[in-house]
């Protein structure tokens, strides 16, 4: 058995995994630093101002406004999710 193994070509070394670890950490920490270190103030501010702007025209529940930021390596996106009440027409009429 061992004789054969001696002549067989060596198995290729496993592919390096450290660069993957490094890249995953960089992406993750860029995101986490944003949410855990003060920068979330920006999201709070945006949320307040968007809410105020929409509320001027539509009666809405402040809890139904969700502002989310996704940080990618190349592009970041800002997602604003506003749930409008079912009686929207009346809401608009009142506001205008």
């Amino acid at each position, binding site marked *: 058995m061992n004789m054969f193994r001696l002549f067989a070509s060596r198995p290729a*070394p*496993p*592919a*390096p*995994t*450290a*660069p993957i*670890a*490094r890249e*995953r*950490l*960089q992406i*993750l*920490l860029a995101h*986490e*630093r944003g949410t*855990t*270190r*003060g920068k979330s103030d920006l999201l709070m501010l945006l949320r307040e101002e968007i809410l105020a702007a929409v509320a001027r025209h539509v009666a809405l529940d402040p809890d139904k406004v969700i502002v989310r930021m996704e940080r990618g390596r190349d592009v970041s996106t800002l997602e604003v999710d506003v749930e409008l009440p079912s009686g929207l027409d009346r809401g608009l009429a009142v506001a205008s």
Partner: protein
Amino acid sequence: MAKVLVVTSGKGGVGKTTSTAAIGAALAQTGKKVAVVDFDVGLRNLDLVLGAERRVVFDLINVVQGIAKLPQALIRDKRLETLYLLPASQTRDKEALTEEGVGRVIADMRNNFDFIVCDSPAGIERGAMLAMRFADEAIIVTNPEVSSVRDSDRIIGMLDSKTVKAEKGEQVEKHILITRFDPARAARGEMLTIEDILEILAIPLLGIIPESQDVLRASNVGSPVTLNNPACSPARAYSDATRRLLGETLPMLVPSEPRGLMKLFGRRAA
């Protein structure tokens, strides 16, 4: 001026207690008067690593609550006469550790010691917060591994916002101590490199402690690795880190294991 150091990491098992004992002993060997304080209420271990487990009478919570006076609770090391241990409580309620009480004890110790080294528990709960709360400097112990690096990043954020220094608009001086490093695996791309970690965490490096069997040997016998076998690679690395802490500039080498002919043969045979 006394200095309060916190040895912290977020993640458990990375070497906080080993590092506290090794650096505390190395500082005391330079003649500085050093107190190492165990903040891991309920799971104390610094006493065991220092070989003082059978000499614990009073603990940090006893002092905080005024049941014991500070000198009664401090245990003087049998090998180094300038090294003292303030053990954590084993049984009592964690809530007994109050910020006001800890602040009082640390302020008291500042008058009697050159260095107060606080061994933080893992996690980001009360014990960890209080261990860093009054720190002037922080040693963030990190393993070259994703979860440890991520947790270190969280801890850095907390050092910058939740400490007394940060609240006064000052900075806790932060150092990274990389432990359990294996240069051969890093060279093969199997382990994050020193450069990777420093680039991600963006904190100056205090030292690189190689993965070594000497660390376990030292804790088995209850001796800081810097005292147990000063010539071994982790002990030399801890000594260098300690000298850097004291302001010396030293080349950042990764001390390696001595590699004799016997060892080479040993490998072959395996």
